[in-house]
């Protein structure tokens, strides 16, 4: 038996040549081919990263790609919706009894509050008219673009979502995005701001992103001014930072966007009065300069299905 026998000969006892395999030949040429292919793909990825990150040259292509992909995403969502609704229905059933009791009590309290608020609103309108007062921009000063979410946040790092409205609908980089339930004027609670715009889609950076921050105030105590940003751990918690020890913030207070403070050149992109969350805990020690305030967001950032984008009024 020659020394340079093949494994086929040893295993099968035959030296008959097989047809070229369709699988993974391991000859030197195929190893070279493999290296060339993976090298080219890695190089292409690096070029794409560089071009996409440093310029907007690929934005058109990406926007078109996203537009082509959109009907499929909507179709997938529609197909999955009945299953998601069923899961939601069962989940809701488990909590329904507790929620019912809690909501009845809340309803009573809100009814009483509404009567007081209606009086205050009426008085506010009268006084504003009488004094010819021009306040900071509010949600009422914007047009509202209602749209749906087409892609949710992916992975542990990303805190942004893709919405089904773009520059053709008046959406701009920096447009404020809110959730379409509750809140004054039926506008809802703050979600984040638009950071990339294409003709029919836009990307929204959520308030829970580590680079997001918004100047905020306590709705019942406007002297409290701070900056709302993501808490250290879970995105379920926001913190109201930079609030001095006086005046004290109470647990349960609602925190809203402060809007522009004064008439400086750096105007806030957030209109005043968009609800953000309620104070869930507060503490401070003698050594602290500021209060440690945690907020429970009014928005469940994990399940946003539709949003309202505030765009400047046409004309």
């Amino acid at each position: 038996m020659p020394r340079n026998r093949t494994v086929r000969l040893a295993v099968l006892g035959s030296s008959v040549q097989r047809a070229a395999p369709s699988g993974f030949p391991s000859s030197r040429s195929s190893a070279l081919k493999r290296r060339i292919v993976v090298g080219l793909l890695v190089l292409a990825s690096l070029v794409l990263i560089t071009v996409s990150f440093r310029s907007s040259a690929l934005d058109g292509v990406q926007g078109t790609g996203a537009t082509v992909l959109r009907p499929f995403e909507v179709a997938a969502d529609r197909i999955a919706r009945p299953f998601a609704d069923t899961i939601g229905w069962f989940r809701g059933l488990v909590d329904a009894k507790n929620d019912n009791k809690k909501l009845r009590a809340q309803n009573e309290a809100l009814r009483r509050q509404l009567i007081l608020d209606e009086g205050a609103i009426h008085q506010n309108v009268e006084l504003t008219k009488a004094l010819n007062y021009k306040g900071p921009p509010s949600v009422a000063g914007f047009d509202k673009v209602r749209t749906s979410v087409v892609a949710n946040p992916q992975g542990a790092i990303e805190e942004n979502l893709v919405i089904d409205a773009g520059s053709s609908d008046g959406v701009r980089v920096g447009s404020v995005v809110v959730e379409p339930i509750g809140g004054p004027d039926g506008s809802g609670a703050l979600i984040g701001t638009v950071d990339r715009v294409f003709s029919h889609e836009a990307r929204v950076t959520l308030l829970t992103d580590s680079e997001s921050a918004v100047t905020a105030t306590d709705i019942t105590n406007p002297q409290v001014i701070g900056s709302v940003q993501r808490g250290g751990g879970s995105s379920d918690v926001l913190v109201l930072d930079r609030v001095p020890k006086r005046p004290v913030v109470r647990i349960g207070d609602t925190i809203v966007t402060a809007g522009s403070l004064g008439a400086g050149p750096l105007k806030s992109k957030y209109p005043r009065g968009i609800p953000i969350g309620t104070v869930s805990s507060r503490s401070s020690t003698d050594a602290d300069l500021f209060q440690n305030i945690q907020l429970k967001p009014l928005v469940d950032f994990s399940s946003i299905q539709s949003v309202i984008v505030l765009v400047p009024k046409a004309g």
Partner: protein
Amino acid sequence: MDVLKAALVLFVAALLQLSVLTEYRLFRTASIVLVALLSIALLRGSIFGAVAGFVTGLLLDTGTLGTLGITSLLLTLGGFWIGRYGETTARDRFHAPYVSVAVVTALYLFGQLMLQFMLGEPAPAGLVAHGVPGALLLNLILTLPVYALIRRLFPPLELGDRIREVRLLG
């Protein structure tokens, strides 16, 4: 035929991930695309895995309006590496898909973190470290049905083809 099947499987997986699974916070760290890609790469080899990874990454980056190329780079390397693992040693072993998914899931998350950091974007390492156990668990759970399905769609290659994969010298 394999190319068409892989394109269809990965496209459906990408749609599921973009619009359906990530609606639930629990599934945000899991990646059905990664599991499907690694399963295909394990059964069809390194070149197939690398190309499939590149195209799927491009699809995901387009769908999320993210920086093009980041996901492509990570999935290309993941697909290639697991493809090589399948070619050389592991294709018939029961634990191969689970080991592949576990290792690449962790590397994918940290690779993503590293790229974000290098691009000067927020890279919260603590958040990723906290997310790794959940992502590992969910991806391993997903591996069971996904790999079974993909093994049906991409039956293992013939014995003869496999024998030629290893060349003995001496």
